[in-house]
């Protein structure tokens, strides 16, 4: 107990000394921690575009700094501490695995604001969380997949079996099923966010099984490259970035992560003093989830149907998880007309009825 007290005191001293120094400068420093390389597309690239939007929006008044390829775990805590010591006023940690590190460092630097993407822990008043409702985009993809498949076999490359991904799979399947009751879904778990070789293997295995529409929750263009090799028989979607180089086919549409509006809003709030702890979860309506151009490879009526779904979601007249929906085991989840509460979605660890296979436990 005594030791812990000592620790807290020392940490406080540390942060007072440096928090104070950071406050004195007139520029606001926004820092970003990336899990992968920025590269030319994908999850990290999109976050970096958001960071650049912050620079564009505020010009000389802000300074941005970032660190790529920060492993989730012990290294993240060090990088965050270095950033906080180095005068960052607000730090965006852009991967789920930074959750504990973000909260641990936030405890030591009460004057620095921390924003953790896709997490749920806000243990200190200076920690906020934010995420995007990607499942809304999956509904649009599912509709296209259900209409476009000829073999009635559609696939999904899962990254990790976390609620975020499971809800994407469920949304994709439900909407494919809605327009095509015969559809079957194959899920392959890659256990990575970015590994072109593994993603290509997953896509290859699915194509061999007759799958002709592949959606992926991993970041690389490898699944699209594999689809392209199938000679026009297999289509897929851009993930995180538009991946427009595979237009018009196999990439027939995409989900684009657009973090800029949120980053600009939060940094702006910090600058004008209106900043408050938040738990943000915006979707298509808020502009965080963009549906990339649906190409001419998709028939006009399917395109219109998908775009209408997108617009209904944006207008708030349709929720992708609207009952009746049963769980995989046949038990009831949502009653007729009921929509899924956010809490259910954020902890989602079950497939909906009709999906075969198990979520890895």
């Amino acid at each position, binding site marked *: 107990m005594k030791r812990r007290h000592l620790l807290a005191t020392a940490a406080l001293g540390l942060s007072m000394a440096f928090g104070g120094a950071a406050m004195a400068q007139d520029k606001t420093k926004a820092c970003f921690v990336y899990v992968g390389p920025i590269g030319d597309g994908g999850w990290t690239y999109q976050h970096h575009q958001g960071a650049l939007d912050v620079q564009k929006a505020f010009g000389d008044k802000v300074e941005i700094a970032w660190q790529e390829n920060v492993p989730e775990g012990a290294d993240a805590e060090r990088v965050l501490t270095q950033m906080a010591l180095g005068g960052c006023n607000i730090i965006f940690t852009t991967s789920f695995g930074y959750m504990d590190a973000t909260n641990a460092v936030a405890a030591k630097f009460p004057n620095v604001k921390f924003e953790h993407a896709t997490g749920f822990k806000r243990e200190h008043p200076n920690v906020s969380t934010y995420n995007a409702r990607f499942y809304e985009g999956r509904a649009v993809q599912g509709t296209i997949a259900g209409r476009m498949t000829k073999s009635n076999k559609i696939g999904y490359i899962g990254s990790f079996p976390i*609620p975020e991904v499971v809800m994407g799979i469920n949304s994709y399947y439900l909407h494919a099923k809605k327009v095509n009751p015969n559809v079957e879904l194959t899920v392959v778990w890659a256990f990575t966010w970015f590994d072109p070789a593994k993603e290509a293997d997953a896509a290859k295995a699915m194509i061999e099984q007759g799958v002709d529409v592949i959606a992926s929750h991993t970041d690389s263009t490898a699944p699209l490259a594999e689809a392209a090799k199938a000679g026009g028989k297999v289509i897929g979607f851009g993930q995180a970035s538009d991946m427009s180089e595979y237009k018009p086919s196999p990439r027939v549409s995409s989900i684009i992560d657009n973090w800029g509006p949120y980053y600009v809003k939060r940094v702006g709030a910090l600058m004008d003093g209106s900043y408050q702890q938040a738990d943000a979860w915006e979707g298509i309506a808020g502009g965080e989830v963009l549906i990339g151009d649906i190409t001419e490879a998709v028939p006009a009526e399917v395109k219109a149907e998908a775009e209408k779904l997108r617009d209904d979601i944006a207008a708030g007249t349709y929720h992708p998880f609207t009952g009746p929906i049963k769980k995989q085991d046949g038990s009831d989840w949502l009653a007729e007309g009921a929509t899924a509460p956010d809490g259910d979605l954020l902890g989602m660890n079950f497939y909906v009825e009709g999906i075969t296979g198990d979520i890895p436990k």
Partner: protein
Amino acid sequence: MLKLEKRPSPSVMWSRATPVLAVALTMVAGGIMFAVLGKNPFEAIRTIFWDPLFGEFAFYLRGQLLVKAGPLILIAVGLSLGFRAGIWNIGAEGQYIMGAICGAALGLAVFPTENRLIFPAMVVAGALGGWAWAMIPAVLKTRFNTNEILVSLMLVYVAQTVLAMASTGFLRNPEGMGFPGSRNFSGYAAARNGFLWEGAGLHWGGVMALATVVAAYVLLQRHMLGFQIKLSGQAPRAARYAGVQPDRLVMLCMGVAGALAGMAGLFEVTGPAGQISIDFNSGYGFTAIIVAFLGRLNPVGILFAGLLMALTYIGGEMASTNLGLPSAAIQAFQGMLLFFLLACDLLTNFRIRLAKKGEAR
């Protein structure tokens, strides 16, 4: 014309000098690379090598140096014993993972009991986990004469899959809302591997690394077994005549390396990393191979090599955040270090001479 001539025996002078020469050449070549990237090379080199030790935030970063170097040294010393005897354990990463899983499983099984014996018992369990994983390639080699390089390396991928299973299944935090990852040991005093004193950067893993360096030094200099290890590497035939049992040596070297790697994993999971998570391993097992060679397979050399490697990581992070260097440039810089070391090693076994014209070959 230049000509390479084999030395009758390896040069002791060059064997000592090549690491220093390699570091110097890396600084020059790395400096040129940084300059081409448009950064001030002197500032970049200073940020990497000087700032973590003597810069503004050295009070924090020096401790972090020990955190990062500890597991590298612990694993590298174990590997070096085998490497000296010509036993190539490339799978320390897997042994590190299995050690962490076994030790953590023990701690989580007795959660939330508070008892002084829990942590030492976890260390033993971690060592056993790593040992057992290393015994697979060892037994296969001694029984069926399989290649330990391939088997131990392939087992890394198996271990990663077990890690994914553990963090999404049998070790998952029951209070984690379905998200993967175990309980965080930072909240469990009996199993926590905290710093010995606040800000020290030295935890039990660091202490164990130092003890191992001393033990390995004594073993190699003063003990019959050390002599046998060295002899087996230099003259396997002579070793057999001298009564060395090769199978016993394989089991021993693999076992020791596995146990040390397992312990390193346990110290990491209960300390800096805090929890078992899907990507808990951050490559210490592979980097340790570089450290072992950079340290000339000599325990004292490995101590310095581990610290140097840690310096390039931490300094590299600083250069990346503060100067905006892409992380790929930092990785290339670290790669250069190994490249120049291996290149300079040529001088240990060969000498360069000017070939006379018309000399018979």
